[in-house]
């Protein structure tokens, strides 16, 4: 019974990982179909709650969701099954592509194509940064944190992880001060 549940979790999340492009929100429709409608592992509301949690915990949102649903269904091992199912397609597909690409990377046409792709990807990433700035910088303090983090990344050897921890601490302190002022 338990083995069957673990297999179901693995297969469901394997499908979700293998058939959606992009992760995060792009996965939501597929998750709804597999997890909510087909298996009834959680309700629509729970799924959105899991998403909210996934967005404010470390790690990849898709993996967090797989872990959470798996854990609720079959404990820690269930969480592991869901997560392994979610990452398996990536492992297979990426390793295949990487090994194939190695054989073709020296062909001029592949080099030209990759050069073009790199430029477009830079523009895509720039676009992501702009929309993250719009969502993340909502007031003066946000702008200040953005500026300080950017300067730290550009001109100092401060580790990236430390910047994240400091920014989180700054957020907590700022909100404390705000509450005290309003009290």
């Amino acid at each position: 019974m338990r083995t069957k549940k673990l297999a179901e979790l693995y297969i469901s999340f394997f499908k979700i990982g293998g058939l959606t492009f992009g992760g995060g929100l792009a996965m939501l429709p597929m998750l709804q179909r597999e997890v909510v409608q087909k298996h009834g592992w959680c309700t629509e509301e729970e799924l959105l709650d899991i998403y909210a949690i996934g967005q404010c915990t470390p790690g990849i949102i898709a993996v967090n969701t797989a872990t959470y649903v798996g854990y609720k269904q079959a404990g820690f091992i269930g969480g592991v099954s869901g997560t392994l199912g979610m990452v398996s397609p990536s492992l297979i597909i990426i390793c295949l592509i990487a090994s194939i690409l190695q054989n073709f990377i020296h062909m001029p046409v592949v080099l030209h194509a990759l050069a073009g792709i790199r430029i477009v990807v830079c523009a895509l990433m720039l676009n992501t940064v702009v929309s993250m700035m719009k969502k993340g910088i909502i007031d003066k303090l946000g702008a200040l944190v953005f500026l300080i983090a950017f300067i730290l990344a550009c001109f100092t050897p401060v580790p990236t992880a430390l910047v994240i921890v400091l920014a989180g601490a700054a957020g907590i302190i700022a909100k404390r001060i705000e509450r005290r002022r309003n009290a």
Partner: protein
Amino acid sequence: MIYLILAYEFFKIGLFSIGGGMATLPFLMDLTNKYDWFTASELTNMVAISESTPGPVGINMATYAGYNAAGVPGAIVATLALTAPALIIIVLIAKFLENFSENKNVKAAFYGIRPAVAALIGYAVWELLKIAIVSVTDGNVQVNVINVSVCAVTFALLQVKKLGKLHPLVWIAAGACVGIALRM
């Protein structure tokens, strides 16, 4: 030995990359300076392939980085190490914390973290952009006008509402065509 280093580095990335797959980018950028697993230019290729294949982008990038560093075993180690912190944290939250995302300290921390993540990714993208738009001929570093134009035009097109919603795969395919056509 390389597997231990990979496991350590990707566990760290999993623990501190908050806010979606692209959040792993600044950390991968750090790795290009620390190890000779892949170059910054290869990192941009990895982003392109991760965006145009199924699966979460963050996982795809970790798998690719691990593969470049140490083949298939490297890919497996990097991917599992990336997911390990989340596995532990989510199980703890599911077990002990109700309404975690409504907690006021969690909300306050995220209020600070979101702009910082945008800045860190912004810096990493700036570094990758610099590499993509300059060309080195006979030791002379020159800004490549064609590359800058293609990047600017793409960015401008992305601001058009309907075009911006197109899947990244479409853009990446277009980039490949432009690259071949212009012999970039």
